[in-house]
């Protein structure tokens, strides 16, 4: 495949490009799902193609094709150069990138069991068994399960001499029980909502989730929610379990630190960021106990933001984002790193597939663990609400004001979990929320969650991101705005 990327680079050079990088990507997907005891979706998808990104006349051009022939690749590269020349019609200055070394390397994320080698019958049998366990519980109106696998193989070459081959294997699964009773729909999901848990891992992840064992509890809670008390309104102490906290990190830290957003590149669609560049190194983003990193390295874990090189050939790195509460870093690329005083890209450029332009994406944006045992945290809390599993999420286009609701909550009184609560929600302002954090649980309770469906860019791309978190406590948080009458 590197012959195709080399041909594209050479064509672009001859046509006048001053920089080019090309990717061939081969993607294989498998999706399985069930609903109410029947197979719902069952499909496989493969897609192979090439794209090339060029600078010509000081401006960017990009083209992608699935015609992997000499003529197809040459036409694609020529088209990218022509597009770059057209871009220069509305140019204010030439594109300048910070330097990067050339790398020749090959990498594959470790996994134990190739999910595409596991018989489909076995995968479907597992989903149907979990589905049946949920339907066993009286009151469940819809039982749903799903499993997804994605293998992405990429060959990257650039005009500075990099030649990088990477293979990423991703697995994920989840279950949901939905109940309709009276005038209310409730649901419970495991291990998280909106598709479950996803990691750069093989089928061993699916086995470890043990969907069948958790199915009855999920279904029972979905039924019990109808009779639960309503979550209180007003200012309360809030404890978030780790998957909800992972989404909180995603929305109120991960997106605002994207430097392209800060600089206005996303202003028309995803929005901008309150984290303007003068705040770097000065803003008290969070309380002293809060430390957040953007870590794409394998040693951080098998997150959906883990890789060896990003899609402009920059090695995976760990960047301090919040250090002891202070805002210390952005997600950057080769084009914009110098704007915040960096002499090297943070290595965060990724594209959904061969046909998309790489852009700044979250890697693994994780809250580092604290020192609290989970039971100690509950025992230390007199009066609070513990919220679990996201149900809805929304945040403004500068990433200040947010509102989340979760599937379930628990009342904490006198250091004990005393009763189930329904329709929980909380809202706030990003920096006020993170500055109210006064306890974070330890490594033993830390989970690296995968968000497989983060949307950004025009045309919109979907990307997987990772978020490590352990349960944490926040003081004086506004509850109940979503359901207030």
């Amino acid at each position: 495949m590197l012959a195709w990327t080399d041909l594209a680079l050479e064509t672009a050079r001859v046509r006048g490009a001053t920089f080019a990088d090309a990717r061939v990507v081969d993607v294989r997907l498998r999706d399985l799902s069930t609903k109410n005891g029947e197979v719902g979706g069952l499909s496989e998808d493969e897609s192979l193609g090439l794209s090339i990104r060029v600078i010509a006349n000081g401006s960017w051009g990009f083209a992608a094709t699935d015609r992997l022939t000499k003529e197809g690749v040459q036409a694609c590269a020529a088209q990218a150069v022509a597009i770059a020349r057209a871009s220069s019609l509305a140019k204010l200055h030439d594109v300048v990138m910070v330097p990067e070394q050339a790398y020749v390397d090959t990498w594959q994320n470790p996994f134990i069991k190739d999910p595409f080698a596991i018989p489909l019958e076995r995968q479907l049998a597992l989903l149907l068994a979990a589905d049946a366990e949920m339907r066993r519980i009286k009151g469940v109106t819809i039982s749903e399960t799903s499993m997804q696998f994605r293998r992405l193989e990429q060959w990257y070459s650039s005009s500075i001499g990099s030649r990088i081959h990477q293979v990423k294997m991703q697995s994920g699964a989840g279950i949901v029980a939905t109940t309709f009773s009276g005038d209310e729909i409730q649901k419970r999901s495991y291990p998280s909502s909106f598709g479950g848990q996803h990691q750069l891992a093989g089928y061993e992840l699916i086995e470890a989730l043990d969907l069948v064992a958790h199915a009855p509890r999920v279904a029972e809670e979905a039924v019990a929610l109808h009779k639960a008390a309503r979550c209180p309104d007003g200012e309360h102490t809030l404890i978030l379990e780790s998957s909800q906290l992972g989404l909180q990190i995603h929305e109120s830290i991960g997106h605002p630190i994207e430097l392209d957003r800060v600089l206005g590149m996303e202003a028309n669609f995803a929005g901008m960021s309150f984290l303007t560049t003068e705040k770097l190194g000065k803003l008290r983003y969070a309380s002293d106990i809060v430390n957040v990193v953007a870590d794409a390295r394998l040693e951080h874990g098998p997150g959906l933001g883990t890789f060896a090189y990003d899609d402009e050939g920059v090695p995976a790195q760990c960047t301090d984002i919040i250090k002891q509460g202070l805002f210390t870093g952005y997600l950057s690329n080769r084009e914009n790193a110098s704007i915040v005083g960096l002499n090297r890209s943070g290595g965060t450029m990724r594209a959904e597939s061969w046909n998309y332009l790489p852009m700044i994406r979250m890697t693994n944006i994780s809250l580092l663990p604290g020192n609290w045992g989970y039971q100690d945290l509950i025992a230390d809390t007199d009066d609070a609400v513990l919220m679990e599993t996201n149900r809805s999420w929304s945040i403004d286009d500068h990433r200040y004001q947010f509102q989340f609701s979760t599937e379930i909550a628990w009342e904490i009184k006198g250091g004990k979990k005393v009763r189930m609560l329904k329709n929980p929600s909380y809202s706030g302002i990003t920096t006020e929320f993170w500055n109210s954090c006064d306890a974070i649980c330890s490594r033993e309770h830390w989970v690296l969650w995968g968000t497989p469906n983060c949307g950004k860019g025009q045309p919109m791309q979907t990307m997987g991101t990772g978020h490590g978190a352990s349960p944490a406590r926040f003081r004086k948080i506004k509850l109940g705005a979503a359901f207030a009458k």
Partner: protein
Amino acid sequence: MTPTRKSFIKAVRKAAQKKVVAGPAVAALHIPSDTELRGLAERILRLSDADETEVEIDAGADALTRFANNTIHQNVAEQMLRVSVRTVFDGRTARATTNKIDDESLCRVVLASGELARSQPKVPGLLPMPGPQKYLKVNRYFEDTAEATPQDRARAVAKVVAATAKSGQTAAGIFATGASAMALANSKGLFAAHRQTRAEFSITIMEQDSSGWAKSNSPDMRQFDPEALAASASRKAATSRAPREVAPGRWTVILEPSAVLDLVGFLFYDFAGTAVRDQRSCFNKRMGKKVMGANISLRDDVAHPLQSGPPFDGEGMPRQQVSLVESGVPKNLVYARSIAKKMKTKPTGHGLSLPNESGEAPINLVFDGGTTSLDEMVATSDRAILLTRVWYIREVDPYEKVLTGMTRDGSFLVENGKVAAGIRNFRFNQGILEMLSNVAQLGPAVRAAGEESFDMVVPAMKVNNFNFSEVTKF
């Protein structure tokens, strides 16, 4: 943004993509003719020994010029051809898809579909594939749009950003064009084909503490004027300078068509027969009851001149016009073939590609409009909020259909019949059925474009008692 709001959205998006995706970066790119599509489909059908076989082909080319800070910072083009095969063996069905169309790959995708199908239990209620059908004729392919070049888009953008810079403002946005062709064929002799172009221009214009937005799209790029859209966004940014903070609460709100679209778009799946049967639709137990105002009527109508997309569904059934709500009363749902049989009714031609667990969805919604212009809505309001667009909308309560989200890029206080000032943006938590029960005035229905919903034909609305729950810092 984390976009997936329901598990079925992937399947629905796939159906919707047939409305909007694709388009050549340059005229030289080849979009297959119906004859070429038929030839490829027949070639694939001949490779299959399944009981029944269905082939979907999607081909196209897309190009998008993106600008920010008054300069083009991204300019992309893509061409693709995708073949998807569904086979049926002994009452079992599955799908395999590839973009490789050499003989070996086509054989492999047919075999892969068969292997997937045979790996599962029998699918209860799987119907035989339909035979040949007759379709409405729709013309949604425009040569001018198909032949748009990167230079055409760049020149239009250059003109707009030059004017913006002259006003001391900053522009960001996109200009996209494309064309696509698709076909669906099966071993029962069904063949359906559709060709379409698309064009879209969206712009946000910013000042120090304010912004304005405008967007339009159409299969025919001559139907919108980038300079006029930019001028509108520019005026909004200028008018909303130094935004005031006003208290949240229940307000009379004037929603421009884009804001209406992104809110009411969340209702579309509730009209699916499958959603009602699953008891997850807000119309469950409410069919035939008055749940909206008498001034609200809507239908699904693929043939409407302001609509787009193919006149057939994911199984090749003809899309029919369905009256969904009449004078505030939900009257009818849409049905794929299998759910129609289970619910003892007739299919309406709104099925998603099989296999799927979601069933069907109306994706060509058309609201009845009124006669009140946006200016008249403002002029007849003592105190109201005027909204250009809403953003990051998510469902809070699926049965009461309560949505949350933010206002954005052009939110104004109206006082004494005039736009008095820009305001800081609000968060809302609003039941959509309640909202559609409180519509005081309706504008003419237009093709609107937003970011959170499929394109629809909707009117501007003046709504009483709209619930803003909190305010943000800008």
